[in-house]
C-alpha cells in the first residue's frame, strides 16, 4: 500500500509529454488569410504597396531565439525542401529579423513592401521576354542586395519566408530543429507575377 502511494506520487511528479512545435504564418492586409495583394491582383506593378502580417508562435516549452528570413525567388531557384533533410533555400536573404520568444508566446509583426525597380528584358526575337527585379522597398528601407531575380514573362516570382531557430549546441541559427525527437522546419511562400511592366510609361 505504501509503495503504491509513493509510486502514484512519483507519477504525479513526472511531467506529461509536451507537443513541441513552432508555427509560422502569413496574413493579408486585414490580418486574415486573404487579400494578400491589393484588389487580390497577384500580377503586381512596381510601386504597388503590399501589406502582410507575419506570425510566429513558440510551443517548444522553453524560451527560443528565432529569426525570420525573407528571400526573393523565381520558379527555378530552389526553395526550402522539407523532404530532403529540411534544407533551406540556397538563395541569400534580402531581409532578416530576430526575436526572443517566451514559451507559448506569439510574435506578430507587419511588413510593407513593394517592388521599387523592375525592367523588361528582350533577349532576342527568338527568345521570350523576361522581367527582372532590381530593388525593393521593405519596411521603409530600399533593398538592392539579393533581390535581383529574373522571371520568364514575369511569371512565378515568390517571396519565401523561412523560420530559423538558434541552436544552442552549434551556436548558430538553423533552418531545422529537433522537436519531440524529430527534425522539423517551417516556411511560407507567396507567389506573384509581374507581367505588365511593358504597359508602364
Amino acid at each position, binding site marked *: *500500500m*505504501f509503495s503504491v*502511494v*509513493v509510486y502514484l*506520487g*512519483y507519477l504525479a*511528479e513526472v511531467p506529461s509529454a509536451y507537443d513541441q512545435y513552432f508555427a509560422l504564418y502569413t496574413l493579408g492586409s486585414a490580418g486574415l488569410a486573404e487579400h494578400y495583394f491589393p484588389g487580390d491582383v497577384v500580377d503586381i506593378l512596381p510601386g504597388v504597396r503590399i501589406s502582410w502580417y507575419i506570425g510566429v508562435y513558440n510551443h517548444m516549452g*522553453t*524560451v527560443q*531565439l528565432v529569426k525570420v528570413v525573407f528571400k526573393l525567388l523565381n520558379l527555378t531557384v530552389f526553395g526550402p525542401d522539407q523532404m530532403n533533410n529540411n534544407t533551406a533555400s540556397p538563395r541569400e536573404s534580402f531581409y532578416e*529579423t*530576430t*526575436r*526572443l520568444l*517566451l*514559451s507559448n508566446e506569439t510574435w506578430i509583426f507587419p511588413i510593407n513592401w513593394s517592388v521599387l525597380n523592375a525592367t523588361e528584358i528582350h533577349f532576342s526575337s527568338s527568345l521570350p521576354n523576361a522581367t527582372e527585379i532590381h530593388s525593393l522597398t521593405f519596411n521603409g*528601407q530600399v533593398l538592392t*542586395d539579393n533581390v535581383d531575380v529574373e522571371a520568364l514573362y514575369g511569371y512565378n516570382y515568390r517571396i519565401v519566408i523561412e523560420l530559423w531557430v*538558434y541552436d*544552442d549546441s552549434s*551556436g548558430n541559427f538553423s533552418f531545422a530543429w529537433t522537436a519531440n525527437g524529430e527534425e522539423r522546419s517551417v516556411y511560407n511562400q507567396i507567389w506573384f507575377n509581374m507581367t505588365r511592366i511593358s504597359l508602364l510609361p
Partner: protein
Amino acid sequence: MFYSSVVQLVASTTASPVQRPIKLNITSRFFLLTALFSVLAISTFAASFAVNAQVSPVGHALQTGERAYIELKAADEAGANITALALQFNVALGLLENASRFEKTGDNATASALASEAENSFLAIIPAADSLEAAALSKQQQEATGRYIGILMGALIVAVVAVALLEVNRRIRWRQFAELRIKPKVGA
C-alpha cells in the same frame, strides 16, 4: 623526396667554385613551385584569418547577445520569470539590427554607437538572469523537498490507516468465528 631535391639543388649551386647558371631539373622545379605556392597559400590564409579575428562592434555585441540568451534560457528552464529581461533583450536586438543596417551603408559611427548600446544592455541582462536562475533553482529545490516529504507522509498515513483497518477487520472476524464455535447446537 622533397628534402633530397632541396639537397640536390643546394649541392648543385654550392659544389662548384665556378659561377655558373643554376640548372634545375623537372623534379626540383616542381618542388620549388610547390613550396612557393604553399608559402603563398599559408600567408593568404593567415591574412584572412587575421581579418576575421577583427570582430566589428556589431559582431562583438552579437557575441555578447548570444551569451545573454544562454543565461536567459537557463533561467527560464529553472522556472524563473524572465518576461522583463526578454523585453530588454528584444529591445537590444532591435538596436543591433539597426546597427547592422548602418554598418552596411557605411555609417560606422552610428553602427558602433548602436552596437555599443545593445551590448551594454546584453551585459546588464547576464547577471540579472544569473540571479533569477539561482533564486528559481533554490525555490524549485525547496518545493521539491516539500512535495517529496508530503508524498512520504501521505503514504505513511495511508499505510497506517490501512493496517489499522485490516487489524480491526481481523479482530471482528475472529470474534464472529469464536461466537460461531461457542454457540450451542439447536435442539441439543
